[in-house]
């Protein structure tokens, strides 16, 4: 693969997936600064290993696998897992971030916060399903989990998120 071909293919992939990969990194890691770094690492790695793309039409899975590995490495490094496994009393709304208003930005902030309360596996499955529109089978391929496991993760993630945000959701509905 020549340098020109490599650059052209990279530009195509970046134009199509930059926002999606960034969203994945941001919501899986949950830290914007770290997500910025990981996002760059993902595309550096993509650039260096473009010659390993074998099948047409599978580039998104290939890309998300790279992103997933980078995110997992970042998560391991920061040992965030322990914090997220903390159990919350869902009837207690005092833990929800206090905000000045109930506008659109507040809703976004609450959703960000709610996602960070999920386990890594739940959040990853939810991001792939809702942000990327991946089918359950595709999520199973990317994450390496079984199909039934993916279903359970998504169901429980959404249920937990709904229960966490229910006290404030009516304001936005």
């Amino acid at each position, binding site marked *: 693969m020549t340098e020109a071909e490599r650059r052209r293919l990279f530009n195509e992939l970046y134009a199509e997936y930059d926002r999606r990969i960034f969203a994945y990194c941001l919501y899986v890691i949950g830290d914007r600064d770290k997500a910025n770094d990981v*996002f760059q690492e993902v595309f550096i790695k993509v650039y260096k290993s473009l010659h390993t793309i074998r099948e047409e039409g599978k580039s998104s899975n290939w890309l998300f696998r790279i992103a997933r590995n980078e995110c997992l490495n970042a998560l391991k490094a920061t040992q965030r897992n322990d914090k997220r496994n903390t159990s919350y009393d869902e009837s207690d709304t005092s833990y929800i971030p206090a905000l000045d208003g109930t506008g659109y930005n507040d809703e976004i902030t609450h959703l960000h916060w709610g996602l960070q309360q999920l386990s890594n596996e739940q959040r990853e499955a939810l991001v792939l399903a809702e942000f990327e529109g991946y089918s359950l089978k595709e999520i199973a391929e990317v994450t390496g989990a079984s199909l039934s496991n993916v279903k359970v993760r998504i169901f429980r993630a959404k249920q937990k998120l709904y229960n966490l945000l229910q006290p404030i959701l009516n304001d936005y509905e």
Partner: protein
Amino acid sequence: MNERIEELIIAYLHRGSTPEQERELFEACKTNAATANMLRQHLIMSLKLRQLRNETEVPLDVQNALLRRINETVIEAAPARVPSAIPARRGFGWAHLFGASLATAAAAVLVLFLVLPGTPSPPGPQTAGVTVRDTVLLTRTDTLVQVKSTRIPVYIVRNEKPAAPAPAGTAPDAADAPGVAERDTQAPVVPHVDPSDLASLQPPALAEARLSEQPSFLEQYNAMLISVEKVRLTSSDRVRF
């Protein structure tokens, strides 16, 4: 809520259900309010999360940083694709002679001895009493395999046709002498001295001895083996050291 309903809801919302499963879910929602409420909750969360997705933009500074790093990666990778890097130029050493081709090594040895300051000139033919015009040349058939010692200067001397005897008391200009035009190198030109003059300056016994010692080039060749392992010469060449 049984696991079957959970699976039906997730499959329905994420493109994993068959028409039969969809019918089964809708029937369950009609008959069970809790199932309908569960489906509603999941739909709300899906809509909210997709709204969050649209809020995600790659910051401009991150894009610029990535572009800069990609360019750096390209620059770093470029030298690695060159088959072999040109080694840095080093000073001359004897090791160069051993690693060079034979002809190059032979030429290097000869040229080096000629240009080294303070190196004594090869003994002129006049000392041997031979009326030849010797010019240090490297002939085409010379083969220098290996230099064993560099302490003894080695010269390969082409034996050219004898110059016409110069008038007594005069030494012809070297540049005018026949055969000199064939010189390949700027070797020091030895002034021509008539052997008879030379002989007259030396004790007769010594001169005679020198003449008798005038070896064939094979003998010189053998003597030269002290410093050179193998040299091939033409019949017109001689070796001095």
